[in-house]
């Protein structure tokens, strides 16, 4: 499989269930070309077209997975990239903990209840910490971008989500139906795991 074709299917693997536009947006490619690649893969039975949204079929998923080591050999052997990834995993722990504080508050009993977002002070503090973490992580992300330039898209999306959250659009922190900070962060994690052939550890 050609590298550009693999990249389209990789984008679909990360997005899982997405339109050609969404895949194109994920990998920074031209939507028309992505549509062509996806349509061609529908013909070969690797991808399914479900009313305009594409998804990898099990066979396609296996083929895409098997090709990562070939297309990302240089990334997998790049010391700076691997060091940056290690740092990402550490920051990831902090991001997950912050998203949890966003969703859950601990009662004095130790019982965790859903954060109903009625305490603006609390919410502001969590968003502020997320912003601080994001800023501290940015140089690391830039190091990754020197090896894989398309990761730059994540930097822009994370910043855009954070900006909206800071202005009071609270769903941009972790809403799963939006490119919220957590949604983008999570897709970036999935992207890195795929490229490096690693398995998610919770």
């Amino acid at each position, binding site marked *: 499989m050609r590298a550009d074709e693999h990249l389209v299917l990789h984008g679909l693997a990360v997005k899982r269930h997405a339109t050609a536009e969404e895949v194109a947006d994920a990998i920074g490619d031209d939507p028309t070309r992505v549509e062509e690649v996806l349509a061609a893969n529908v013909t070969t039975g690797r991808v399914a077209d479900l009313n305009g949204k594409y998804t990898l079929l099990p066979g396609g998923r296996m083929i895409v997975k098997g090709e990562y080591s070939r297309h990302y050999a240089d990334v997998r052997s790049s010391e700076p990239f691997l060091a940056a990834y290690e740092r990402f995993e550490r920051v990831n722990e902090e991001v997950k903990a912050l998203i949890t504080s966003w969703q859950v508050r601990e009662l004095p009993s130790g019982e965790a209840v859903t954060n109903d977002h*009625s305490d603006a002070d609390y919410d502001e503090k969590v968003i502020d910490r997320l912003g601080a973490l994001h800023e501290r992580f940015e140089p690391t992300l830039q190091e990754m971008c020197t090896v894989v330039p398309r990761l730059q898209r994540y930097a822009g999306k994370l910043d855009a989500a954070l900006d909206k959250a800071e202005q009071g659009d609270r769903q941009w922190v972790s809403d799963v139906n939006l490119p919220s900070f957590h949604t983008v962060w999570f897709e970036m994690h999935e992207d890195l795991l795929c490229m490096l052939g690693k398995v*998610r550890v919770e």
Partner: protein
Amino acid sequence: MSSAAVPTRAYTHRLSGSTDLPDRNLVGGKAWSLARMTSLGLRVPPAFVVTTEGFRHFHEAGELTERLRAQVLDGLADLERSTGRQFGVGPAPLLLSVRSGAAISMPGMMDTVLNLGMTDEVEAALANESGDAAFAHDTHHRFLELFNDVVLGLDPHDHRADSPAAVRASVSTARPDVAWDPLGQLMASIEAVFKSWNSRRARRYRAHQGISDDLGTAVTVQAMVFGNLGEDSGTGVLFSRNPLDGSKQVYGEYLRRAQGEDVVSGRVTPQPLSELADQSPTLHSELLAAAQTLEQANREVQDVEFTVQSGQLYLLQSRTAKLAPEAALRSTIDLVEEGVLSVDAAVRRLTPSQARSLVAPRLATTSQSNPPVASGESACAGVGIGRVVDDPDQAISLAAEGIAVILARPTTSPEDLGGMLAARAVVTDEGGSTSHAAVVSRALGLPCVVGCGAGSLNPHVGSIVTVDGATGTVYAGELPVLVPREDDSDDLRTVIAWARTLSPISITATAEGLDADDVVDLTDIPGGIDPEQVAATIAGLPPTQAISGGAAGSPEAVTAAIDAGVSRIVTDPVLPALLAAVHHTAPGQPDATAPTSADSPTDTKGQPR
């Protein structure tokens, strides 16, 4: 050279016990809250503020000028006098906290630095004074970690080392200009606060919100107090009412001879507040009186942090307590009956989501007698019953056939989102309350139990289970679920009656008295069952007398219905919708007492909103 030629401007402000509150724009929100506490006659650790005048001076000069430094040193000398401790010097060293404080809080401002003034000599003095060398050492490391992170903007992970000297050496290779002496630490922190005003996030926020860049931030410099200086010292927290059920009984914890961090680190097991009563009945009653004062002044249940240093009570912070929904309901009703709160303010204080969780389905208590088939950590409360499926695609296809499914996975990834959306509950083998499954489930309001152990539900694939998200347990079979009724609770009936007097729209549990022709059932209308779309759907309806079904009870629908001139909503439970309706109207009198009360009731948290 004459100082008379240039009138010396005050760049600092001492927070005294005066009843006159300082200008919030000059000292910032945090210092203003401290001043307010002292004005109520309560003791807080001594503090001074480098004001927004000082900020402007700094930015004009581009540095901390001699004049500004001299005033900071004066403020410091004041703190040394009032605490009887010395900055950077034993045997009783003074440590400081430094906080940013603009009149309006905003992102990107410098966070708090604690234990400033710490050196190897100070650590030794503190070890000697407290008789706890481990505490002094921890304090030193915690200081370095915060200072490196917050003031220097470094990742503390990059500079971890066994000894403070090694941490400093590591940081100094990256940042050779750092002055590690106590005054150097203080000046660097003040400068970092001032500079954070122009951080990218702060500037962006102000630009969006139309806040002037000239407003500036103040810096609060406050003495640290220690709860571990002897048997007559300690630290604790208290709630002015029981935060679990809302009853009028003070609830708290106290640790004798301990510092606040000990509570967090779990180094010591907290004792009930009666421990303080045993140590000193006088202090105990002083504390209860303080909690009462704060609750009266703020008209909300308070969560108070305090420290006793050598027999002297200091209040560190007081904020609105986070209450269990039951407690929020009970205390709000009590505050009305006590004449502290008006009915209008009380109803506005309760949220639709609190009202909803009070009637959320739960497992009947009798049903938990049989042993669970799996248990893990609670990630999202709620009850889900269905057939166990271990494949997300199968979950989607079964759910499409109308079969209730429980998705069981080793862990979840973005690939599983479709399956999660289709499931009634999610159970994972691995992961804790911060795992992907937990985060996504909470975003979806989906019952979820995580970390049940490898293959925990494998034997149950294909069979029916009941998942209790609240307790993190999974039971075999379908267990009876209890749905609490609003009518069964006196407290809920009281608040419903109050909310009805304030609601601009009639909200009822049944369609009694309505003609079927007058009611639009949203279930039958595109977009009518999705809270995200329901507002647009309602706005697009022809003039309608009443709505029911679908998402009619959601806050979005209630707001849209009022705006569209709908006169009645049929939904059950009614209280969440009633509260949303009241929240959509302009507030009336916030407090039950005279409107000219000295302490402004509009600010209940000491923070501008």
